[in-house]
């Protein structure tokens, strides 16, 4: 459904210093700087997939999204989505996609969301019956019955974001791009929106989710693409991502007697809370879990212990932290 081949985008920016003198100087002379936002990025996404598209700030994920939505022209490379080249067939193409930008509202601030929906109906030329049916279904699903007729400026952030989803999906798009859709929302609103995305995905809509909220990714995405420095550093399933740093466990242990020396292969002390309490990271390829528990219990007597898979946050931090993708290919086989 989505084919991206060697996509590159280079921007020209101008360097300007931080001082007043630099600002004055920049009025006359500006130093040009070429920024390679994307460097020959390639990937494919199938119909009905829900992809987490991650990366640190400035990694190139928004640029990718903007090219895929037909907003920007690339410098080189090819993109084909549902048979369209986004920047060449923009008008026909965007009739089949939707987009939710967490930080840019499509709703009109002073009037109720309902009026914005009706304007979208005109723009997308949605037949009246289909429009009412889709809108009622989504309003019902997101509990917005009494909300859509209130002026947008009076709505809470969560209510507004739910309305943004309806705005983006009234025309039943086949692909939906989500850019930080749950930013600033409370747990309940986040949950409702995640359920909505999940429900729409089950009906066949393909989603590409860009976010810094890893809980969103864990709850929704089956596959994750991570970009850093304009290149893909990871493209595989969530399961593969969890195992990316090896077979590791996160352990929180409390003992009756002081903890023994933990300075041995396979154990990384993340936080020593007291002589009896520590958070550890175990590398199971170097140390067997049952042997670790047995030894610790014999030496210090375990009072309490929790063993969990390594938090996804640590893995992502590791991927983000790399200066540049190294020679070893980080992209594992396709899921």
């Amino acid at each position, binding site marked *: 459904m989505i084919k991206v081949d060697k996509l590159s985008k280079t921007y020209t920016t101008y360097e300007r210093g931080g001082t007043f003198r630099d600002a004055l100087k920049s009025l006359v002379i500006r130093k040009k700087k070429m920024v390679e936002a994307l460097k020959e990025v390639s990937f494919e996404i199938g119909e009905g997939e829900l992809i987490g598209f991650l990366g640190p700030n400035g990694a190139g994920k*928004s640029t990718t*999204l903007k090219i895929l939505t*037909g907003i*920007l022209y690339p410098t080189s490379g090819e993109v084909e989505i549902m048979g369209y080249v986004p920047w060449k067939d923009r*008008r026909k193409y965007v009739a*089949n996609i939707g987009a939710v930008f967490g930080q*840019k509202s499509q709703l009109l601030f002073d009037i109720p969301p309902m009026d914005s929906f009706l304007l979208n109906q005109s*723009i997308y030329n949605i037949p009246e019956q*289909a429009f009412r049916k889709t809108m009622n279904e989504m309003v019902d699903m997101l509990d917005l019955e009494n909300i859509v007729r209130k002026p947008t400026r009076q709505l809470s952030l969560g209510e507004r974001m739910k309305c943004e989803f309806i705005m983006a999906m009234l025309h*039943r798009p086949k692909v939906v791009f989500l850019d930080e859709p749950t930013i600033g929302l409370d747990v309940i609103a986040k949950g409702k929106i995640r359920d909505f995305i999940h429900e729409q995905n089950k009906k066949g809509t393909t989603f590409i989710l860009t976010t810094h909220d890893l809980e969103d990714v864990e709850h929704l995405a089956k596959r994750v693409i991570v970009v850093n420095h304009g290149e893909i550093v990871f493209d595989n399933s969530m399961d593969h991502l969890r195992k990316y740093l090896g077979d590791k466990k996160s352990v929180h242990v409390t003992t009756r007697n002081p903890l023994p020396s933990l300075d041995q292969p396979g154990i990384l002390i993340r936080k020593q809370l007291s002589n009896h309490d520590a958070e550890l990271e175990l590398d199971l390829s170097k140390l067997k879990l049952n042997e670790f528990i047995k030894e610790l219990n014999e030496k210090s007597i375990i009072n309490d212990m929790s063993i969990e898979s390594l938090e996804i946050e640590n893995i992502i931090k590791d991927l983000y932290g790399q200066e540049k993708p190294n020679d070893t290919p980080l992209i594992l086989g396709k899921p």
Partner: protein
Amino acid sequence: MARTVDLPSPDEQKSNAGPLFQWFKIYIHGMKTAFASRMAYRGDFFMSMFIMMVVELFGPLVTLLIYHNGASFPGWERHEVLLLQGVFLLSRGIAFPFFMGMVWNTISRVQEGTYDLLLIKPRSILQMSIITAFDSEDLGKLIGGILLFIYALKSVPSLPLVNWASFLLLFIFSLITMFAFGLFMSGLGIVWIGNYRIYDIFMSVMDFGLYPRSIFNKLFQTIITWVIPISLLGSFPASALLGKQITGVLGAMLCSIFFLLVGLWFFHRMVRNYTSAGG
């Protein structure tokens, strides 16, 4: 997995109406939405419209003062100059609320990064820039223009039909010129981010259209006819209506068409260079 709701896809959502009808349908909807937005603050809405109207009438007031003190524009009676200025205000009164808002809309959206939201709609970016920019308070300009036009017309003896026909044709060209101006400024607003002075420069240049072309020297007359056809905004249509002899009108019309075509090309070329704001 198949969709459970049986709805036509956007490709299937074809209307029987023609593209022009569709264009106007969306435009009217955008206009209604803009009115609704603006009327959320009723006091400000009426006050702004009134102020717009009063500000527009300052130019004609200066004309009245000039003639009151015994001075005049050579070859033009007082009521004739007022008619010219009425035509000029009519042209602005139609252009500003109905399509010139695209300039401000483009400049501010590009600066904020919300121009992206127009590009993800299945309509031409020019259409989206216009329909999301209807400026209801500028209707004050239109009301001012109509009032002045009617007032000046009262002092003019009855005019033959051919004068009205020539006037209408040239008035359409004045709107074409305005639209071309709008295209150039919007295009500049895409690449020259946050530069609201484009608008001010345009307003200052346009003010030359408030006076009869004949009061300027030959070189300037050539410029406002052949280079930037400002004469079409007031002087030429008013002269045609009054049956005055005008020279260079065909050249100005051709220049206006050329201006429009280059404006369209320039606008779309600049859209290609759009860089969006950071994510």
